[in-house]
């Protein structure tokens, strides 16, 4: 039996391979296939045409330096992506640092960690919608600002704006940054911090020279979570942007609702390529395998 492994290892790997194929490989392959199909108002037609891709970028080169709709949409999505990434990274790193290095007892760490997960006890949509009575024209924040005399009239930029979209994203996804960074931090041998202190490093120098470099894998994993979620999002941008802000996810959703599946699929493939490029860039900077 030792000399002839035979079929056993394959059987052992089969369940995961099946799940992987069923829920990941086949849908992905279908999306790619459909993106090359043709369609009209009534039906989608099996074909092999690059038309869908051409239409997405139609006029983009001619109209330069003005940006076409597709490029504008990508730029807007990337802008949200960058803003949300930067803010969740800063917040997530700070919270993780506090949890990992300032909270000494394991019990307290667990309690505070659970508190961080409270937003996840309810649905995504409810969490978003609950911002509306807070930030709206007659919402709590505007009422408070008016009552305090800080502003003369209700602030419009609080809701259905870039601000509210970013706020909701940060609210929803900071935890995805906290968890991997915290995990990285807990793996840092505390003797290293003492060694840095012994070598005369200030708190800030220890942070920059020791803690941040050793947290890079966690930062990269958290960044992948946040970037992929924000790049593909259409619900949050829809609800918090008052259906007025464009995003790639939104474009795909609209095309789907008009049953233009091949066009949606082509857009999805391009989006996938963009996200993969971002992740490839991240993994070039940081070796995340160390963390897995």
């Amino acid at each position, binding site marked *: 039996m030792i000399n002839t492994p035979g079929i056993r290892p394959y059987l052992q790997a089969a369940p995961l391979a099946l799940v992987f194929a069923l829920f990941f490989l086949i849908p992905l392959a279908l999306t790619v296939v459909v993106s090359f199909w043709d369609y009209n108002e009534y039906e989608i037609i099996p074909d092999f045409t690059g038309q869908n891709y051409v239409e997405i970028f139609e006029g983009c080169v001619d109209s330069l330096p003005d940006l076409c709709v597709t490029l504008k949409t990508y730029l807007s999505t990337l802008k949200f992506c960058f803003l949300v990434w930067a803010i969740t990274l800063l917040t997530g790193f700070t919270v993780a640092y506090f949890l990992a290095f300032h909270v000494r007892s394991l019990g307290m760490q667990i309690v505070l960690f659970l508190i961080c997960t409270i937003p996840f006890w309810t649905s995504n949509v409810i969490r978003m919608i609950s911002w509306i009575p807070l930030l709206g024209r007659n919402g709590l924040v505007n009422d408070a600002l008016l009552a305090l005399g800080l502003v003369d009239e209700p602030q419009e930029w609080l809701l259905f704006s870039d601000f509210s979209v970013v706020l909701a994203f940060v609210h929803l996804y900071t935890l995805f940054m906290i968890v991997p960074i915290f995990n990285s931090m807990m793996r840092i*041998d505390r*003797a*290293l911090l*003492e*060694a*840095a*202190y*012994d*070598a*005369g*490093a*200030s708190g800030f*120098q220890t942070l920059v*020279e*020791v803690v941040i*470099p*050793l947290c890079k894998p966690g930062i990269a994993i958290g960044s992948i979570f946040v970037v992929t979620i924000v790049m593909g999002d259409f619900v949050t941008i829809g609800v918090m942007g008052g259906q007025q802000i464009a995003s790639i996810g939104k474009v795909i959703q609209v095309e789907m609702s008009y049953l233009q599946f091949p066009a949606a699929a082509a857009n999805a493939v391009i989006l996938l390529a963009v996200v993969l490029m971002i992740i490839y860039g991240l993994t070039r900077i940081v070796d995340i395998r160390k963390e897995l």
Partner: protein
Amino acid sequence: MGMSTGSEIALKGLTKRYGQVVAVRAIDLAIPAGSYCCLLGPSGCGKTSTLRMIAGHESVSDGEVVIGSAVVNSAPPARRPTAMMFQSYALFPHLSCVDNVAFSLKMRGEPRASRRARAMELLDLVHMADYAERLPTQLSGGQQQRVALARALITNPGVLLLDEPLSALDPFLRVRMRGELKRLQRELGITFVHVTHSQEEAMALADLVVVMNDGRIEQAGPAREIYNRPATEFVARFIGGHNILRAAIERVDEGVATLATEGDARYTLRGIAAPIGETVDFAVRADRIRLRPEGDVAGFGNVMPAMVRAVEYQGALVLIELDAPGAAEFSVTLAERAFDESPFQVGDSVMATWEAEDAHVLATSR
């Protein structure tokens, strides 16, 4: 490289409390400049807390740490003329050897070229220059230790503090690195304070062995003094090689005391200060005891009848454990040749004999 000079260390009534627990109990110790000092004791005896207070990684609850002529109680580690080598070496895993060694110079803002040049000198000193660009994970334990040493030495410290530096190495390497440490200490002329729980390590290295137990110093002195005249029962047991017996002082003639055990055996001992009638513990060196066949004992100083319980061959030595009246453990080490001349088997009745000079009285451990 420039020779640094060692700093002397004085601990005065040094105390460390963790809440209700007292880890170090008002110890006094003077470590001469340029000496190799080993803090020796079982885990939890306070040796590491003492080291960390000298280093500045642990606050002092009471008393003083004086290095050179300055009280350094409140100075951070970098403001003390000390450098610490950590137990697990604590090399920065994301930095190459040369960057690890240059770390403290980088923290001081020294330019890259000069700090790396200095780091290379230190790596050369510990024979690691060829590995300068490797990451710590690509090195063996012994190599990591050399890099950690170089890192600690780069600031020209007057005192190098080593926390169980050899415990992570395999026994072979441990003996080799021990020699390296001693060589470096001699060459650099700085004070080494080395925490260990291995009496063998302490005796091989230290000019000054400090045996600690329960937060106190049991005995401090040169290794030979500790081994030849352990002051307390704890020291005698901890350093090994001693048998401990208990007896009451019966009489003292011209400096030679006669003691009587509960089993009514008589032993003689020199240099006793306790009053007649007092019960004392005394230690007999295992390597000074001779074994003779039963009966043939006329004219020997101290004689103890016993039975051979076990014989253990250890190479150059043979360890013989005896069942003896009044001693839970009693062992004798004989040179292999001496054993071969009159070998004993398990179960043989023997007479263990020793001279009055080879036994001495112990103070009771507090």
